[in-house]
């Protein structure tokens, strides 16, 4: 059987990829979003080489210097400096590392956990399903930010706690989605055929069912990624996330808040970059949904 399917496999995969790309690139917004996110990722990776200054360096002779287009601005600090004389552009560039990597970890953790629990619930049904769905209902009963705040308070504020807290808050969405798709697929012919051929529980769950449930999960992952960026920034803003002097976007906003009357740039740019990043990821998510999920056609 392997001998028959091997030559055809790359062709089908390439065909699938091509048809995915055709649908995805049909949306201009999705393309723009993807290019923007790719650029932010490259900037984050190359931060030490791209940033004009050390993000922690405090220039005492240049406190709250305005951006370059102001009369008092200079090319030395293109987007100006904050209250202790740190270069805002460099801090934003380094901040991209924190926002993107923490959010990526959040998505990985909650997706892996959610897929596992969702597969168990959808595959075994019965009491396993009841317990898992009830626990997820409890998580959903609390406003997400409040629960995350509480978890961070328990784990003591910091990068790891913020990551875990937001992953927990995102978990139910992955569980519900996986469970629903598994239930939908479970009684299809190919699954029954596989079971009759002698496949065990693990093989049925992970090899047979999971690949066929991935499309909505990938869409959810992009949504979670943008939500995670917002939540990390919100926690940082409330002083419960990444701690200063780490150049995290939300924490930068919190620090700049006192000076918003005199130094709009210290408040404007960190927020603008959060908004743009989240917006572009959401644009990309819309495109992915149209391309991957024919049921959720563009409306």
């Amino acid at each position, binding site marked *: 059987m392997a001998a028959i399917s091997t030559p055809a496999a790359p062709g089908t995969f390439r065909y699938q990829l091509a048809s995915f790309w055709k649908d995805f690139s049909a949306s201009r917004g999705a393309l723009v979003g993807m290019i923007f996110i790719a650029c932010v990722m490259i900037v984050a990776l190359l931060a030490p080489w791209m940033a004009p200054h050390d993000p922690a360096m405090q220039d005492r002779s240049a406190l709250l210097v305005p951006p370059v287009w102001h009369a008092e601005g200079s090319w030395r600090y293109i987007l100006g400096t904050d209250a202790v004389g740190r270069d805002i552009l460099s801090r934003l560039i380094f901040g991209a590392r924190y926002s993107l990597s923490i959010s990526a970890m959040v998505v990985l953790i909650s997706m892996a956990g959610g897929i596992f629990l969702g597969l168990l619930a959808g595959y075994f049904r019965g009491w396993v399903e009841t317990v898992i769905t009830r626990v997820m209902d409890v998580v959903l009963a609390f406003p997400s930010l409040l629960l995350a705040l509480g978890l961070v308070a328990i784990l003591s504020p910091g990068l790891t706690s913020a990551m875990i807290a937001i992953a927990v808050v995102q978990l139910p969405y992955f569980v519900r989605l996986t469970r629903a798709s598994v239930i939908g697929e479970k009684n299809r012919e190919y699954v029954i055929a596989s079971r009759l051929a002698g496949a065990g529980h693990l093989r049925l769950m992970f090899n047979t069912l999971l690949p066929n449930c991935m499309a909505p999960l990938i869409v959810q992952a992009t949504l979670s990624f943008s939500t995670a960026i917002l939540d990390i920034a919100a926690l940082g803003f409330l002083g419960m996330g990444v701690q200063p002097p780490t150049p995290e976007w939300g924490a930068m906003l919190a620090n700049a808040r006192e000076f918003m009357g005199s130094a709009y740039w210290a*408040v404007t740019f960190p*927020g603008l970059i959060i908004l743009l990043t989240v917006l572009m990821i959401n644009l990309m998510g819309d495109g992915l949904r149209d391309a991957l999920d024919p049921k959720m056609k563009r409306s």
Partner: protein
Amino acid sequence: MLKFVLVKLAQLVPTFIGVTIVAFAFIRLLPGDPILLMAGERGLTPERYAKLQAEYGFDRPLIVQYWDFLKGLLHGDLGNSLVTHSSVVNEFFSRFPATLELSIFALAFAVIIGLPAGVIAAIRRGRTLDHTIVGISLTGYSMPIFWWGLLLIMFFSGTLGWTPVSGRISFMYFIQPVTGFMTIDTLLAGNWDAFLSALHHLILPAIVLGTIPLAVIARQTRSSMLEVLGEDYVRTARAKGLSNFRVIMVHALRNALISVVTVIGLQVGLLLAGAILTETIFSWPGIGKWMIDAISRRDYPSVQGGLVLIAFLVMIVNLLVDVAYGVINPRIRH
């Protein structure tokens, strides 16, 4: 219909027990000893410490403490705040109207703008107006609202000086609380200037809190309108020669509203989460700010009680949404 409601209610019971367990465990896991925190810098003798522990019941087995907590909850007693020493239930409900008032104005803002925007986008599908509305709502949907709040303060309060920066009403006025809603209480007191001051204080926070719901409502209205506009009964209505306005407002919108109502209901949980950020930015004296303060002060009973009450509210609202959905869409009941 009654059976549908009862089944939904029964399903809530295990979730509610789960919520109480989480709220109870939550607080026991927080680092820091509440008694030492209360004592502050002065410190405590070991005897006094033991006495206080016994007084607050922290020395008993956890399961007993949980049982007492549950018993108290069923009697509407959630203990006293460690900081103010007054009842947690009173503390919560004295601040709740502030959050509720803010949320109602935010939701009203979201619906009044979001609904027509969604309808217009659907009617003008593919035109510039549609793209503009879709673009703006996606931006709103992606908005970090804490930043949005700061921007609005910088522009409207700072540059233009139109709106106040924080609080619910100007210090010039003292209004006896009757309903807890500042806008209603000022009117009851017959103080027109105070009413205007209260409205002034509400505008920016309501816009900030309403931005994401607005975007969600506009997107949902647009997509369900598009779906409904393709239905046979809309074509029939047009074929009957009804005016375009009547077809859209009566035949299409009424059916499109079914899914929009659900989405509006689901915003309530989001509003409470958003209230935490909005109230922090505008120093709005509601439950969001109260919870943040309670968490940072390790005020055990307040955090515990607040979590239970908030989760309970979210669950009740979700139940009402489910029931409302059952009423307007009978198919779902079976």
